[in-house]
């Protein structure tokens, strides 16, 4: 890399004389200044290498360095949150390995689960460059390496879970476990990265299987509906029947009270009569008898009075008038 050829040129150029050397010297000074000044963007640090050897890391702002490529500066965006996407891509990438080519997406997302089913998992990782030195000098292609490791780790985690865990209840746990594992590998390689977050995005069964998973959901709804309808019927009938039973019970109790009260009433009336009757039985009897007959007989329209010996009239009467006869 012998690039510093300009210094000797100076002495050769002195020969023609005149303005030439002055212009060349001026140009040289300007070039030197330009190659000695650099700025580091706000979210980065500048890693300075002198003859390739790590020299220092400088904060954002305007800085000087040795010119002519002796010092080389690499800005490393340490404060920026970087992102890698797996199985999809959002526009506006800030990191060169943020997403892969669309042709890779299906391969990236297809995973075998721990019950030997298949799930399609999309996810992102968010990370920061924590140690610029490690990031630059320990691993070649750190972004690409991180993609490989992330895919491997995610499959390791998914491989230990059933397809149902992956699709429904296990999501958060998968994110947390994968983050820990990924950070472990990243530390092992000393990549200088800190994994802030892993987020699962769309997690689906494979396309041809999707419909059957939907059918399960429908069946689940259907089950709830059938049960709810039956419960509704139950709730409609039971309280009403309970009320009706109570009604019948109350009515029976009413009957009981009525029955006893009536009996007691009848008895006390009879007792009263009896006590009077005991004083004069014959007369009372006679009176009761007569009173009754005098009330009853006027109602009767056909009355026949016969002599006690004239019994032959009875058959005649029965033939002519089919009416109730009440012999005394």
């Amino acid at each position, binding site marked *: 890399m012998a690039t510093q050829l300009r210094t000797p040129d100076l002495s050769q150029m002195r020969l023609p004389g005149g303005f030439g050397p002055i212009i060349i010297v001026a140009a040289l000074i300007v070039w030197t200044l330009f190659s000695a000044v650099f700025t580091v963007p706000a979210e980065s640090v500048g890693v300075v290498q002198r003859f*390739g050897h790590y020299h220092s890391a400088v904060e954002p702002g305007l800085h000087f360095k040795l010119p002519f490529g002796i010092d080389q500066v690499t800005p490393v965006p340490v404060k920026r949150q970087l992102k890698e996407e797996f199985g999809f891509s959002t526009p506006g990438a800030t990191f060169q390995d943020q997403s892969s080519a669309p042709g890779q997406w299906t391969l990236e997302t297809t995973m075998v689960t721990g019950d030997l089913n298949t799930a399609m998992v999309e996810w992102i990782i968010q990370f920061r460059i924590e140690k610029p030195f490690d990031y630059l000098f320990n691993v070649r292609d750190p972004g690409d390496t991180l993609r490989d490791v992330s895919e491997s780790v995610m499959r390791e985690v998914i491989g230990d879970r059933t397809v149902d865990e992956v699709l429904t209840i296990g999501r958060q746990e998968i994110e947390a476990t994968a983050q820990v594992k990924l950070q472990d590998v990243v530390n092992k390689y000393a990549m200088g990265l800190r994994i802030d977050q892993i987020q699962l995005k769309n997690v689906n069964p494979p396309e041809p299987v999707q419909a059957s998973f939907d059918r399960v959901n429908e069946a689940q709804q259907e089950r709830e509906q059938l049960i709810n309808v039956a419960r509704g019927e139950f709730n409609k009938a039971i309280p009403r029947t309970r009320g009706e039973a109570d009604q019948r019970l109350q009515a029976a109790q009413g009957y009981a009270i009525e029955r006893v009260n009536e009996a007691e009433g009848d008895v006390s009336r009879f007792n009263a009569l009896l006590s009077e009757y005991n004083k004069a039985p014959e007369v009372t009897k006679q009176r009761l008898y007569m009173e009754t007959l005098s009330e009853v007989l006027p109602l009767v329209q056909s009355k026949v009075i016969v002599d006690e010996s004239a019994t032959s009239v009875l058959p005649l009467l029965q033939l002519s008038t089919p*009416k109730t006869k009440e012999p*005394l």
Partner: protein
Amino acid sequence: MNNMKSVILVVILIIVGLLGSGAFYTVDETERVLITQFGKPIGEVIDEAGLQFKVPFIQVVNRIEKRILVWDGDANDMPTKDKLYITVDMFGRWRIKDPLQYFLRLRDERSAQSRLEDILGSETRNAVARHELIEIIRTSKDRTQEVDPLLADVDISTLLPITKGRQQIEADILDAASGKLAEFGIELLDIRFKRINYNESVRQKIYARMISERDQIAERFRSEGAGEAARITGDKERELKTIESKAYREVQTIRGKADATATAIYAGSYNQSREAVELYKFVKTLETYRSVIDSNTTLILTTDSDLMGLLKQIEPAR
């Protein structure tokens, strides 16, 4: 003066010559340098980044990567021990541990990569062929699955048990390959399964199995729904019958007791003495007349009755 000028000129020419001939070179943090002379390595490997000096023209700088490097294997179809065809995509991390050995045996990274592909590819193939698929899918032996409460009673597929697991198999491949790579000055840091997928021919069967499993779950849900609904309907009927029959029983008991009490009250009064019995019969008979005799009745009274006896004679015939 002239002499002085020529000395300066000579010095400058020497510097220019050195610079132009490439006597100075820089070593980056990411690399080590091996100096060769006529293709033969000379001296120690230069591991320190910075400006270095060599003999121009005859010595050549060979830059050797110091960082961790990628080996990204090709995706290959291979069968597992349980005869499932899968596509396996591996990747590994390696670095050049012995630059001299590496340089002598391989020269450049391209031949290193192809050697890695040979060795790791075949070790992977061996390892996969020796294990059932589940062994390279799962990692932890003792993990138990969590079950969605909604699927608790359903026959869902479960985590299959393993005896070794993915990390162990990765470690086995690493062990087997490390020795073979060490002689090339390569240190293999790790090797991991990146992607494992069913081969196209297997995939359709897997999908069919997944579909049938889901259908079975759906059927199960439907049947559970109908069953539970029937159970609730049964409950309802039992409850209705219970309530109604209990009410009937209580009603009858209450009425019976009331009837009994009333009967006892009547008996206690009507049966208290001979006169009471007589009076009751008499009064009751008279009451019966009131209810039995009405306007449609034809009454034949004989003259020997109590009422009409007087029609015949003053002293009733008795």
